[in-house]
């Protein structure tokens, strides 16, 4: 369960989030949609405590994120998977080493156990056999999938994805959208994705929220959103 209440953030007088409220119930997938520069990445950074909000409350699976200091935040983040827009795999490690990294850091498992888990994760994202490659040898879509495997390695029940389809061609975009939905549902994750890609948003998400000028102007299923009269929402969904 993710609960956001009155979340506000501005930079040097430029208001980016202006009192945002929304919930993501357990096991649901929500897409936060908005044009570029509306503050989608800022929202996700706030949710995981990488950027402090000016005001407002954030609760993720019962943890009040805004009240935590950095050492507690580091512990909290182990339970949240985060997929960066640019994948952010370590380029000096192979895919396997990238996925094994959180396991080596946070579990006492031996090498064999970690190996088995990495293989399992690679199969989950359809990358069996590509574990020995370096991120620079992969296509954008494969990098996203490897980063998704790393984000899920510790068995997080909350998944945050920043623009999972950005920079991908339509086919890869569809594949990663369906993969995120499939894995979220299979693993029982509460998931939030941000995107400006309306079509793929509804391939992944149960519900979507339209972000405009720092506020949620509409929220609901695809049918519900298509019935909204607000001119910005209508234009955005076109």
């Amino acid at each position: 369960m993710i609960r956001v209440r009155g979340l506000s953030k501005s930079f040097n007088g430029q208001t980016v989030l202006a009192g945002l409220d929304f919930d993501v119930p357990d096991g649901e997938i929500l897409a936060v949609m908005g044009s570029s520069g509306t503050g989608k990445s800022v929202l996700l950074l706030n949710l995981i405590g990488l950027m402090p909000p000016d005001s407002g409350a954030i609760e993720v699976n019962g943890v009040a994120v805004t009240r935590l200091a950095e050492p507690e935040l580091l512990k909290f983040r182990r339970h949240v998977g985060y997929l960066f827009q640019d994948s952010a795999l370590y380029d000096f490690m192979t895919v396997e080493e990238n996925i094994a990294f959180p396991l080596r850091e946070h579990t006492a498992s031996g090498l064999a156990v970690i190996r088995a888990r990495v293989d399992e994760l690679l199969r989950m994202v359809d990358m069996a056999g590509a574990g020995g490659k370096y991120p620079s040898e992969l296509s954008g879509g494969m990098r996203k999938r490897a980063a998704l495997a790393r984000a899920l390695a510790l068995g997080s029940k909350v998944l945050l994805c920043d623009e999972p389809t950005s920079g991908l061609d339509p086919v890869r975009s569809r594949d990663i959208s369906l993969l995120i939905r499939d894995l979220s549902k299979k693993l029982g994750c509460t998931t939030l994705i941000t995107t400006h890609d309306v079509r793929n948003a509804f391939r992944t998400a149960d519900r979507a929220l339209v972000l405009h000028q720092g506020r949620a102007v509409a929220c609901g299923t695809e049918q519900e959103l298509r019935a909204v009269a607000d001119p910005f929402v209508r234009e955005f969904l076109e």
Partner: protein
Amino acid sequence: MVMLTWITNKLAAQGRGALFFGAFVRCLLTGRIRWNEVFRQIYEQGVRSLLIVTLVSFASGAVLALQGQVMMARFGAKEFIAQLVALSLIRELSPVFTALVFSGKSGAGMAAELGSMSVNSQIQATRTLGVDPMGFLVVPRMLACLVVLPILVVVSELMGIFGGYLVAIHEANIPPVYYINQTVQCIAFVDFFSGFAKVFFFAVIIGWICCYKGFFTSGGSMGVGRYTTAAVALCYVGVIVSNTLLTKIILTFWGN
């Protein structure tokens, strides 16, 4: 007004630099040290600088002997070339030259690596994986500087003396055994110590500046270039200026 903002910004930057160092010390004392990362950094930094340090030092020793031969001949003291070469290198030139070369090779490498990790969100990603990037990325690099630079300085001293030796025996016709004896006898512990003590200080300065600049790099690949050059320039200034102060302090206490 513009001036004031500029000064405030500069001061704020110094404050951030100091905080960064404080965070490093705290992490070093309280955190787990990732030894395999430390060894990897030692290897990488060492390999990056070894060849160029060898070359620069050999040439410096050789040129000291060439000039020394001319200068000393004027005073009729040609047999003291060995002392001139060894003492200049050990007391002053090897520590400073090596620190400068190390800044330009290994230091630039560190700043650029961390810088590109910063602009590609890899530092943020480390935090999302529940790992402190200070412990994972900065501590191993700083520790490696403290190991690698002193080793490189010793290599530099040996190579420099070797360069001087070759010139002295071939150009100045000084007997090899005599040259080696003179070298070994003239080096007192205080000479070695007064040069070597500075090296640890340089290692901290270089590691600090390069990790700090890299860690806070922004502005895409352009930014990586800008922050890396700024880091190296700052290292040069830091090494040369602090060397003057350190030399004064060391000579005050261990003057002879």
